[in-house]
């Protein structure tokens, strides 16, 4: 993993450099025009967020049930990344919506579910920060419950919204736009790799902090 870090970094950098060129050359979508190009960053941001949530959920379960302390490092790193990528999605979404639908926020099922997930993982970070000693376990439980509630949140918000008249739906662009596939694949891959790079970095920080804490404890015991 260590040795792959620098080449991975270079690949991510190259992909992000190439992305704007490919995105600029992608054909315009017929109903939304220019603004639809936000989709190349918006959707991959969600993909990265869901990956982060999955990692956090699994790592939290391993920490809580198996007591693996390294899993805790992964859990907190993934939670931070879920918040960051979620924020990206939650900002680009309304920017798109303002132009495409005319309103900043209209309780669209996907955005609302994402907002709730974002809140859950912000709560995770708050528990770790303000919960006092032993807050790692509490946060792990939060992540577990949060991950478990995701399908329920999505389903209930979805049903809740279909009762109301839909002003617009994000069309499935892959079918209507043959030229959109490659830039989209590139952006998705770039974001996923960015997620991996950031996760590795943050886990390293978590490990260093853990070493520091152990050293402090060892000193006190002397």
């Amino acid at each position, binding site marked *: 993993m260590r040795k792959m870090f620098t080449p991975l970094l270079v690949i991510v950098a190259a992909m992000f450099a190439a992305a704007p060129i490919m995105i600029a050359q992608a054909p315009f979508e017929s109903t939304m025009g220019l603004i639809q190009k936000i989709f190349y960053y918006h959707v991959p941001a969600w993909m990265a967020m869901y990956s982060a949530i999955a990692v956090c959920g699994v790592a939290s379960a391993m920490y809580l*049930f198996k007591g693996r302390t390294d899993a805790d490092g992964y859990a907190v790193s993934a939670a931070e990344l879920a918040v960051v990528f979620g924020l990206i999605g939650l900002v680009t979404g309304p920017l798109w919506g303002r132009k495409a639908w005319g309103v900043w926020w209209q309780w669209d099922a996907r955005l609302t579910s994402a907002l709730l997930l974002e809140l859950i993982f912000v709560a995770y970070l708050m528990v770790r920060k303000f919960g006092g000693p032993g807050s790692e376990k509490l946060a792990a439980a939060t992540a577990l419950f949060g991950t478990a*509630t995701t399908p329920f949140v999505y389903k209930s918000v979805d049903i*809740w919204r279909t009762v109301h008249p839909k002003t617009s739906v994000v069309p499935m662009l892959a079918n209507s736009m043959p030229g959109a596939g490659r830039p989209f694949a590139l952006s998705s891959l770039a974001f996923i790799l960015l997620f991996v790079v950031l996760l590795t970095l943050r886990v390293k920080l978590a490990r260093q902090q853990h070493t520091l804490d152990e050293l402090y404890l060892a000193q006190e015991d002397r």
Partner: protein
Amino acid sequence: MFLRTALLVLRKDFAIEMKSLEVLLTTLFFAVSCVLVFAFAFVKDGRAPEDAAAGILWIAIAFAGTLALGRTFERERYSETLRALLLAPAPRAALYVGKLLGMLALLGVAEGLLVPLVAFLFQASAWFSRPLLLLAVLVGGTVGFAAVGTLFAAMLVRARSRDVLLPILLYPITIPVIIGGVRGTAALLASPADEVTATMWIGILFAFDVVFVTLSLWTFEPLMTE
């Protein structure tokens, strides 16, 4: 053994509560004040918006429930009885079930007061034309809310900032319960009552309950162990 322990915990809490009725009475009164605040917020020209009754009912349940959870476990923390309970040679999950049953009883009494009150104030007497469905929605929602709430309140007992952390953690996770409860009760307000929608939401609520009671039973032990 399991059931006996759970019922013993329930009896203990019941006995303590019956002495002063402190948590019950204050929670009830708080719920009523909640309803009044919402009344003043939403009523215009003597009428509330359509379906407001459903929303107000569930918000009052959620807020009053959060308070009740905090107060019940604060009592445990204050007398350090939780540690004593955990030291007992009883299955930990049974402690959780006992606490959950106590919470359900408390919320049940609160709802027994709130539902008629809200129906009275907001012209929602249509609820009582389908009492079984209404009961099913209430039970489904309350069990879901209480299951997650009891676990979180128990795990936060020794944490700092526990009073504000409980709602921060609880509300986003129990949003499906709120949506299901509100939409289910609102469906019963339609004329004629929309039984299909209500039944659908009842199904979702019970699925939520099963998943989260199970998850809570699993996580209670590792969480409460130091």
